[in-house]
């Protein structure tokens, strides 16, 4: 186990900037998730940590020591790949033992570790099989096993669940959480799936276009997104964002958009700009039946997800999404009354949170 430091790492591929001065610190035993849309540089960062790609600038530190000069084999990291990358010509046992064999560990020790790992993952009965005789979920376990058996300083996981079907993905996700609690390893995990990131990560790093937008706990990222990208990327359905102007009246600050206005609180007194974006999550808007002090909106569509409903409605020409309980019923075209919780507003100026 080890801590990981990433210091001002940059990487270009031709004219494309894959990573731009990325800084990140991961503590010993921490589960850190790199989250972002495809092409944001998260996999590149993982491969740089593994030593499979060399960065143009910056440094990777393991336990505060630079490892940039080390080849992948000497970095003592284990990696799980998206398509598992099991060696097709070896049995499961040989796949598990390969890394240990390459590190010159004694045969009896290898056997002991393989048995331990196999029982930890419940794959004892698969040891003699070849990868092509395994199901997707079994392959995924073997790929995990191949990393676990090494007991490396650092686990690197590159979208390990994305090739599994939805139901299996949830099971394996839970299993991963349990595993992490058991082995307490330092994990760097790449995904584009925000649910994976939120449920697994002690720390979530939101990336886009080679830059880190926010590094925080899942809760903080959800409740205090640092900019409009994070705000709209995290949360499903996405946060409602409205553009508008600030109007300073006597003791009040009023947000004025095309179709409605809101009283704002919690704005620092020295804030001088006049154009802002205001965000509100669907669950922070309430549908009420007494039309007093409420916005009037027209229902356009309803998404029923079973446990709750999301109403997509027009507020003038502005579209917004509101959460409703599953008991309530709405019809398209119906007029509803909405109250926005002013304490739950997110206010952004030039894309950044204020």
């Amino acid at each position: 186990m080890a801590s990981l430091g990433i210091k001002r790492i940059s990487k270009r591929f031709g004219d494309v900037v894959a990573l731009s001065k990325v800084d990140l610190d991961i503590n010993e035993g921490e589960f850190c998730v790199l989250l972002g849309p495809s092409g944001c540089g998260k996999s590149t960062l993982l491969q740089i940590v593994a030593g499979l790609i060399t960065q143009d600038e910056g440094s990777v530190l393991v336990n505060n020591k630079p490892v940039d000069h080390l080849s992948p084999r000497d970095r003592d990291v284990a990696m799980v790949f998206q398509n598992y990358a099991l060696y097709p010509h070896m049995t499961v046992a040989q796949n598990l033992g390969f890394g240990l064999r390459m590190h010159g560990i004694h045969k009896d020790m290898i056997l002991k570790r393989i048995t331990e790992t196999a029982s930890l993952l419940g794959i004892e009965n698969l040891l003699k099989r070849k990868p092509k005789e395994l199901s997707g979920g079994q392959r995924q376990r073997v790929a995990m096993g191949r990393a676990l058996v090494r007991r490396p300083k650092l686990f690197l996981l590159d979208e390990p669940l994305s090739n599994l079907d939805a139901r299996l993905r949830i099971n394996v996700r839970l299993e991963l959480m349990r595993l992490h609690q058991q082995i307490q390893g330092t994990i760097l995990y790449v995904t584009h799936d925000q649910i994976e990131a939120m449920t697994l990560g002690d720390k979530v790093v939101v990336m886009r276009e080679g830059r880190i937008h926010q590094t925080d706990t899942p809760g903080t990222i959800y409740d205090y997104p640092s900019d409009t990208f994070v705000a709209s990327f995290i949360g499903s359905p996405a946060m409602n964002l409205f553009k508008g102007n600030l109007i300073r009246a006597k003791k009040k600050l009023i947000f004025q958009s095309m179709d409605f206005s809101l009283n704002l609180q919690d704005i620092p007194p020295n804030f001088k700009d006049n154009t802002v974006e205001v965000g509100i999550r669907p669950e922070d808007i309430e549908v009420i039946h007494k039309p007093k002090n409420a916005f009037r909106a027209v229902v356009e569509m309803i998404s029923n997800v079973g446990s709750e409903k999301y109403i997509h409605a027009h507020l003038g020409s502005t579209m917004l999404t509101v959460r409703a309980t599953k008991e309530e019923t709405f019809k398209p075209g119906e007029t509803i009354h909405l109250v926005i919780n002013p304490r739950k507003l997110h206010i952004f100026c030039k894309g950044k949170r204020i």
Partner: protein
Amino acid sequence: MMKKLVKKLLFVAGILLAAGFSLTPFLWFVLSAFKNQAQITAIPPQWLSSFSMDSFYSAVARYGIIHYLLNSAIVAGSATMVTISLGTLAGYALARLPRQWGQIILMGILACAMFPQISIAGPIWRFLRFMGWLNTYQGLVLPYVALTLPLAVWILALFFREIPEELEASALVDGCTRLGSLMRVILPLSAPGLFTAAILTFIYAWNEFFLALLIMTDPARQTMPVGIALFQGEHTIPWGEIAAASFITTAPLILMVLLFQRRIVTGLSAGAIKG
């Protein structure tokens, strides 16, 4: 129904025609190898053979084909080993180069393979004389490697390209060096390609006549095709012995190809289907 049947018959006839066309001469000399002197020279020629082993006995005892066979085995074996070793390294590098650069180099290699042998025979001979390698095994292995390498590099490069790079990355992270991942992960998975390249190389070197005749003037170093060609004396053509020697030369190749048939077929059709 009828149309289907006719189609099938035509198909079978085509196969039989092709097989007959290439197999008849082969069958003729196999039968000739087992004929006695009278049957060989009979006019009109006859198919019948008495299954006599005289020609074989004479080819071994009088013409000493065993040492030609040995020379052939040494030359073809070494050429194959060198070609496959170099072809593996070159093919691997080309497979992992950026596509467009790899393609340019592969095309260049292919262009080299297009030179007519006769145009390079003179320079080769002069070069070998300069090196003092005329009438040596390495003197023949060297041009064979040069001539078979392009095809081997092509086959292997195309094969290696099909192997996902993640497997290699995985091997590197698991503790292999580059060469280690090539040997332990990529090569085992490329076995059909290796076999194909090796057998094609071996067949070429085993059967090659022109350069062997040019470079090996010393009977002690001559290979089988040259040895057989030189069987005939001023006044005699020992057809029986020639047929017997040819049979002995061909048999190991056929055996080899039959043995590795399935692997070669997958090798030749590699890239068609991912698997």
